[in-house]
């Protein structure tokens, strides 16, 4: 098992905890997620490295976007994923040495969603109390 972090907003973190990676996730500038867009879910290894920025930094930057400002502030989803699922996500673009774990369809995402209910997970809010 390896601990992974995903930086996002509190509202989205709560939704991810409850239902797993969100297929209806709407990014800034979109009204509704296009059905043709494949679901992707990225996370990072707890001990890094963090080539795309630390999860805290990512969560803070996400929460500052105008469309996300009412979503409860920055938060981190921490979840403990079986190593074999993580191994499915590794590829030439995302070797584990990079610190980024990219779950795509056909690359660990389906397995992650299938096991989501049994995975240990927790939210850490980074907002001011």
């Amino acid at each position, binding site marked *: 098992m390896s601990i992974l972090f995903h930086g996002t907003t509190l509202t989205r973190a709560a939704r991810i905890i409850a239902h797993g990676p969100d297929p209806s996730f709407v990014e800034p500038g979109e009204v509704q997620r296009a059905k043709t867009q494949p679901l992707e879910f990225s996370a990072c290894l*707890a001990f*890094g490295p*963090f080539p795309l920025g630390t*999860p805290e930094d990512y969560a803070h930057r996400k929460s*500052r976007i105008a469309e996300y400002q009412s979503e409860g502030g920055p938060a981190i989803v921490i979840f403990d994923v079986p190593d074999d699922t993580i191994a499915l996500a590794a590829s030439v*673009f995302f*070797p584990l040495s990079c610190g980024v774990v*990219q779950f795509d369809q056909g690359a660990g995402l389906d397995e992650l969603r299938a096991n989501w209910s049994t995975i240990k997970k927790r939210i850490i809010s980074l907002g001011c109390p």
Partner: protein
Amino acid sequence: MNSGLPFVGQLRAAIAQPNGGIVGLVDQLLAICPEQGFQLDWLNGSCRIQVFVAESEEVVEVAIPRSAFRAVLARVAALCNEVPQTAVSPYGGKCVFTNNATAKRYFQAEFTNTSGEQRLRLAPVGRPVAAKREAQMPIETPSQTDTNRAERIESTTAGIVPSTDDPQTKIKRGRWWRKRHPQNGPTPLSTIELLQEARTGDHLAFEEIVRRLSPVLANRLARSRIVPTAICGIDDMVQMSFMTLYRRLVSVRAENTHQLEAWLFTVARHALFASQRSGIPANKLTDSMIDLEGREAEPIENLRRDEFAAILAATINELPEQQQQVIRIRHNERLSFAEIGARLGMTEVMARWNAFQARGRLLAALKKHPDYNDVLQTLGRD
């Protein structure tokens, strides 16, 4: 500089066999970036490369997964955010940045990274003005006129203890850092390394120790059970501690910052007791009045007042090293998780996670005791 067409071939090769994942791919992208720049768009499973060669436009398509292309854009955003005073959103922005892998070439990036659109426009640019100024900043040589060292340190300590945000202090710190690391930029030494420097007579190193530890010590004294008096306030105790440290620089035994902080705390406490006993103000006390023999205490010893605290201390000692450090710093200094993370070289979330794990184990150990509820009331949530 590269012309457009070899660039396309090199980019194809880089994408086909990325060396080092997306980090290596972005490094290669920057290294081979042609002078006239290029634009990348992701469309229907392929990366569309536009290179502008001699007023004409070259368009080539290279297959790359969408998530990898988006990660490349996210990496560019992260590089932009490493530039001081630059903040771009993960979903798009414009900035000038550099990367160590490209021998300090500077690039202007404009990118969009949303679900519907993924685009990157990248071109080399000249060095920004701010970076040139930083490189041209002269390195100050240290002053060699230390005639009365003890007197200077006493006056420095007195000036720094009440206010650590003094702009003069910040200027001194910046020069001191540059003096120590002229080629690598401002990387500070650890407190123990500073202590070793101070032992060789470097008064700037001692000044830096005072600047770092005085707020920690004042904070710890303020929330301890020690009650300051009219003739020995917290500032007096802090100042007395650092003056004693200066006089005993050679003999102080401290292998890490925690031990040094504990030593300073003990001195401060003894200064207060000595002042109370003798009725002499703290700043008039001498070393002989402050009995320090064999009193270097571990920070956690303050907890060992009763049976519950003994259980707690024993359990803390059994925790993994990182959890021990986090819980000790959190308890002793009340630092935020971000500050703890910065000190221990981990992220804020890892600090929180370690504290969470440690608390879980401590509570599990305490729950075995019949007076568990009393323990909780005694210790509070932290």
